[in-house]
């Protein structure tokens, strides 16, 4: 099986690609529209340099060649979401070619404008041109994927890179779209216009399974119906040339000086791949943990700060197994939580010193992602420090033995598990501040 994809990603520049309208989404339709993105007679596009610079950063991160000069073209077709009935894109001369991410070759990356949005309401169709002119980059791979799963892993990695470069904001599913071509033993079919990461994977899985059973007999262009979860036949294959491309005569040749490329290169932060291998070496983490920690820039940043003060292994475990779980459970993201690194260091420091229990750390983490406060003061105020004074512990153990004669009897008769039950009782009495191993020891001593 061979799969190739074309991914369209919305860049997160402040203004649109050929005018100064904001790219911020607006509740009111057709408010972020000017004479240029609105395609009014006489208006002319002027390239927003920031969009090209963001594009070049992506290309560099994907190990691509940057052209020394680049042109824009008009891709002509009639559609109501297009204000000019042509799209300004790049055809013969994209700004970047020949890249690679892992073992997937990247054929080209180019810059273009997004059309507006059609909103179907009953029998009418409304058009909102707020999106018209938002910058997109199109990343085209060679057919190097061998399964839909490889595509998924690639896209995950790509998103991580885009987020690291701060050129992409995952605000909605619509910010990433893809066309995919897939061939098994038969002819190549193309699935057009799939919106969102999850849908891309679903569509490919569907089509891959279908193709395995009945390979396509001729080249076909398919659409993806996400409601029904099936592909459908759109039209017979069109070649790119039918769009009647011409160079856009309103936009001149854009030169990309070497100095600009090296400047942009120097601005590229350490990417996740490099970071995870560094984590592995520097902090002696296992491969899996290192990759998870490096997958999001903010998480990696928190980890490195914590690891300066706390045992890295311990820090990694708490971040991955607990913090991420709590974040997921609360349906928020690492970038949105209120947790302050100094409080996290304080909290894990207390744990490392054996002053608080596992449970206390978890309970406080849940609170700390909602609002910042000092764990030290909180623990003091609520008496959450581990009771290490054995006199006090012994008192609680005696109480438990007195209250649970059956469990004591069971234990004496050889039922080892009953000791855990008794330990649990003592823990409860101590509000979780006792050291369970200590409790067990005292209980065994007292019963014997």
């Amino acid at each position: 099986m061979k799969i190739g994809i074309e991914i369209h990603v919305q860049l997160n520049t402040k203004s649109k690609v050929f005018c100064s309208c904001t790219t911020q989404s607006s509740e009111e339709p057709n408010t972020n529209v000017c004479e240029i993105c609105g395609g009014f007679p006489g208006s002319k596009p002027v390239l927003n340099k920031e969009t090209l610079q963001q594009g070049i950063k992506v290309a560099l991160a994907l190990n691509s060649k940057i052209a020394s000069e680049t042109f824009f073209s008009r891709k002509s077709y009639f559609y109501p979401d297009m204000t000019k009935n042509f799209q300004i894109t790049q055809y013969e001369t994209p700004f970047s070619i020949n890249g690679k991410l892992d073992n997937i070759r990247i054929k080209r990356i180019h810059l273009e404008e997004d059309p507006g949005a059609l909103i179907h309401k009953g029998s009418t169709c409304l058009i909102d041109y707020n999106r018209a002119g938002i910058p997109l980059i199109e990343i085209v791979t060679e057919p190097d994927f061998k399964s839909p799963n490889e595509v998924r892993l690639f896209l995950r990695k790509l998103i991580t890179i885009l987020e690291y470069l701060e050129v992409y904001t995952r605000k909605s599913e619509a910010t990433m779209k893809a066309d995919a071509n897939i061939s098994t033993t038969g002819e190549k079919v193309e699935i057009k216009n799939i919106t969102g990461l999850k849908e891309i994977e679903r569509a490919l899985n569907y089509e891959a399974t279908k193709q395995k059973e009945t390979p396509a007999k001729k080249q076909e262009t398919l659409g993806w119906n996400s409601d029904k979860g099936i592909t459908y036949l759109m039209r017979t294959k069109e070649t790119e040339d039918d769009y009647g491309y011409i160079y856009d005569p309103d936009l001149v040749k854009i030169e990309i000086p070497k100095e600009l490329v090296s400047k942009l290169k120097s601005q590229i932060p350490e990417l996740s791949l490099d970071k995870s291998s560094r984590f592995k070496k520097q902090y002696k983490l296992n491969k899996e943990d290192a990759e998870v920690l490096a997958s999001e820039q903010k998480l990696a940043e928190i980890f490195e700060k914590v690891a300066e003060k706390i045992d890295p292994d311990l820090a990694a475990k708490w971040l991955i197994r607990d913090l991420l779980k709590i974040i997921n459970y609360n349906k928020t993201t690492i970038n949105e939580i209120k947790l302050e690194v100094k409080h996290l260091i304080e909290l894990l420091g207390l744990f490392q010193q054996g002053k608080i229990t596992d449970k206390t750390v978890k309970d406080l983490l849940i609170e700390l992602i909602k609002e910042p406060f000092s764990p030290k003061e909180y623990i003091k105020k609520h008496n959450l420090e581990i009771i290490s004074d054995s006199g006090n512990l012994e008192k609680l153990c005696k109480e438990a033995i007195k209250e649970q004669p059956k469990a004591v009897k069971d234990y004496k008769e050889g039922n080892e598990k009953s000791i855990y039950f008794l330990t649990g009782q003592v823990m409860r009495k101590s509000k979780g501040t006792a050291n369970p191993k200590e409790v067990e020891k005292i209980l065994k001593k007292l019963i014997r």
Partner: protein
Amino acid sequence: MILQHYLKEVKKGDVSIKKTVKAILREAKTLNKKHHCFNIISEDLALSQAEKQEKEPKGRLAGLPISIKDCICVKDVESRAGSEILKDYVPPFNATVVKKLVDEGAIIIGKTSQDEFGFGSFSTNTDNIPKNPLDTERSCGGSSGGSACFTQLTKHPHASISESTGGSIANPASFCGISGLTPTYGLVSRYGLIDYANSLDKIGIMSKTTEELSPIFDVIKGHDKKDSTSLDISSNSNNEVKKIAIIKEAFEIDPKIKDIILSNLEDYDVISLPLTKKYAIPTYYLIAMAEASTNLAKYCGLRYGSTLPLKGSFNQFFSEVRSKYFTKEAKRRIILGTFARMAGFRDAYYLKAMKTRTLIINEYKKAFKKYDVLISPTMPILSPKFSEIKKLSPLENYQMDTLTTGPNIAGLPHLSVPTNSIGKLPVGTLLISNHLEEDKLLNFGRKIEEK
């Protein structure tokens, strides 16, 4: 000199701007009935601008009446580029040239008639056809016919802002007996110009005499960051013309026209531009139509301009609107232009034309190593009668641009200067200089006019 004289009088306070503007508006309305030189006379705008300037004259062109070719956007004034598909379209913004003129105190008196979107050599491809100022049976030339017509007829200080893609300034200037300057491509901002063919479109000026072009040219030229193709360099101020040459192939025409032009020249060489002669017309029409066919796509009845009740699929709706409101010539250019950029033909037509264009530029560049100004007639014929134009095939029509397409595709500045008449019909001499050497043209043009 009538224009400069007026500007001086305004400075001294010896003349009433309001009176002048009222008089020219009155004249425009009267002439328009017979000659159809305006698509719209912007009386309200002109009067309010005149009121303001009368109180406090400000700027280099304070109080000067200017007419604007219909394809150049004037805020709040219908700007339809001679097309019915843009009927009642009122731009929400001023073209950069209009802004510059108004900032210097000019008064905008109206939008002049033209071939639809500039598609034509006689201003006959439109619903409002201008009639030649010297013989109403004849054409004003095109596509800036209305501008040339009014410039010839008016008795008041005035200049017209027009536009050339393949000869649309020089051609009507020649047929109407006035002076028309087409500057270097990119020297005057195209922002706000309703596109015909963006890589060829140039905004220029018409006035009765070459002398009167200069103060307007000084105002409208210069870099504009809203137009990516706008040049960020100024034109060359050296206006000395040492050596001239006539273009051999361009004089293979009516000997009467040839004699008139040559009788005004002395000390010239003869050079040959065979590539330009052979390829200028096909190259021009291929590039212009390919670009035009994409520019015209936006007119589909959906967002502005003429429309029809929404019905059927969007493709049906677009087709109906476009079929109804475009002229036959616009449809011809859309079809030919779309064909030239289609799969399988692109390499043979559109891309080849782009390459040929470079050859033509190089041929001129070589000539300018030796000569300051190249000379040819502006038009191969005198202004034809409308009845004669009707008989021309499209190809014969396109052949009318044989002398003007060369400098236009090369983006070279050129000036048509009125040079005597045959009977009552004027002859124009076309002067061509190297890029950014407009001052040489203006200098040499004045000398020819003096003869």
